[in-house]
């Protein structure tokens, strides 16, 4: 569960506010999705929630813990953050997923840590890549490894920043079904997405972020022609095809 009260953020004193008086309530057993342009402040918001950026104005609570006063190690047991990494790493796939157990490991990983990692490797079909270095994998597989790593921490709350962009269709659907399963296990999930149709498939509750302000929030109904036009400045049609809402982009290229 994430509760945000009056969060405002700027990178330094003289710059403009990236987030302006944001109030959010990410509840359990729901998939909440945040939509917005590049630069709207989605990633900044996620970094504030996960304690990466210091919070000076407002308050963020994760499972009741105040992010700015809780030590990283305690927070990292509650919250897992998945984002795109573009990093050369010679750690193997196994070692990378094991990193998710880091908050629990003092020096040597225990049998429990290895059991959790092994189970995830089987679930994610990563068996043949166990001893491959992370850098040698394709972007999609790196993404999968990073998601497995996040699950290894047994957190209650998950932040996913643009996770589907590197994945092919089958891997994307695999990750989506996994996220839905997390939801059914009672976890709270907060996702930043660009693809509106992906958002409609996954989401239960939606936030629209524009220039650092939560400009609309609500269920599927807020993804409509008018709001999308105001948010992204594009023309769309939202059609219900066989019971599923679809966003159709109208611009001719």
């Amino acid at each position, binding site marked *: 569960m994430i509760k945000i009260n009056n969060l405002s953020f700027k990178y330094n004193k003289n710059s403009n506010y990236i987030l302006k008086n944001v109030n959010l309530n990410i509840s359990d057993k729901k998939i909440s999705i945040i939509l917005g342009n590049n630069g709207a402040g989605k990633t900044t918001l996620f970094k504030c929630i996960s*304690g990466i950026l210091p919070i000076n104005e407002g308050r963020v609570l994760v499972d009741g813990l105040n992010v700015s006063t809780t030590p990283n190690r305690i927070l990292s047991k509650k919250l897992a953050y998945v984002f795109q990494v573009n990093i050369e790493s010679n750690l193997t796939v196994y070692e990378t997923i094991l990193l998710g157990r880091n908050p629990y490991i003092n020096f040597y990983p225990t049998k429990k840590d290895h059991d959790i990692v092994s189970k995830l490797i089987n679930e994610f079909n990563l068996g043949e890549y166990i001893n491959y270095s992370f850098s040698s994998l394709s972007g999609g597989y790196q993404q999968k490894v990073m998601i497995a790593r996040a699950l290894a921490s047994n957190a209650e709350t998950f932040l996913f920043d643009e996770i589907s962009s590197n994945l092919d269709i089958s891997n994307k659907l695999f990750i989506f079904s996994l996220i839905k399963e997390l939801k059914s296990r009672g976890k709270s999930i907060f996702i930043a997405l660009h693809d509106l149709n992906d958002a409609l498939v996954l989401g239960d509750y939606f936030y629209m972020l524009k220039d650092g302000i939560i400009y609309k929030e609500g269920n599927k109904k807020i993804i409509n022609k008018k709001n999308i036009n105001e948010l992204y400045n594009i023309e769309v049609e939202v059609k219900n095809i066989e019971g599923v809402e679809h966003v159709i982009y109208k611009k001719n290229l």
Partner: protein
Amino acid sequence: MNNSLSPFEQYKINIRKKRIALLFLFVSLIIIFFFSLLINSGGLSFSKSISTLFGIDNTSSYKLIIFNIRLNRTLAALIIGFALGISGLIMQINLRNPLASPSTLGVSSSALMGATISIILFNDKNIYSAPIFSTIPMALLFSLITITFIVVLSRTKKFSPSAVAVSGIAITSFTAAITTILQFFASDTLLASSVHFSFGDLSRANQMNNIIMIISVFVSLIIFMLFSNKYNAIYYGDELAISLGVNINVVRFISLFFASLLCALSVSFVGVIGFIGILSPHIMKRFIGNEARYLIPSSGLLGSIILILCDIISRIIIPNFNLPVGAVTAIIGAPFFFFILISKKEQKND
């Protein structure tokens, strides 16, 4: 890869390879260590060395050569090679920069500048004569100033790895210039001792220094090993490390402090020995990957092996002369480093 094995078994195979590599390095080190006790440019022959080492020949002057001079020197090579190997690796991990090492960041040359100030301005004849301004604290002070400067630059100005390396070049030039100016105004005797100090030369090794060095390496190694999980997270960047519960500022500060300490002590005791701090971790990353729990000790062991080997070469290459070992490590290290860079093979799978 055999897919009938469970993930954990496959992981174990990988770990076993790393352990075998560590064992291999350890055994090689012991063999090379004893070999080094037996080899010299002049004086005692190989066969006499063997009989003295194993107590068959009890001639006291032979014993003095083997157990005082050569043992101290070889022990210094072992421990300083180890120190430089792990110091370079820790700098690379914590600055997230493969080009980092005591010599490329200018930490070594800053330590040398500190030592030169101590020798020339405070007339420190041997390294313990003037407590606060003697070479060790001065070398440490300036190497810490440099590493702090680099950390602040790379954090606040978001320096790229190459920008950090270029700053290292600038720092090296600057400190070298100060050292030159000091030497220019120094008396002949002080000039001679400061120039001699700047050579990476293991013949200066003595028991006292070795003990200090062993204690420092031991303490640093324990700290680095305890941080190894955190280092594994730092490979993926500060943000991921923080989200995995790593208190990155504390880890980075403590790590770089001890890495600089090892470098400063090495410079104070035997002068500047380049290339081991960058060469040894790079070779080991190739062979056993980045997992810090195994990479840290193996980089140290390989550093020891390289320095002892270079020391042996420095003793035998010109009969009856001991070349400064710093020259040998650079002459052998530089081409070898190019070889590693050129032969780099990384393939995209999938």
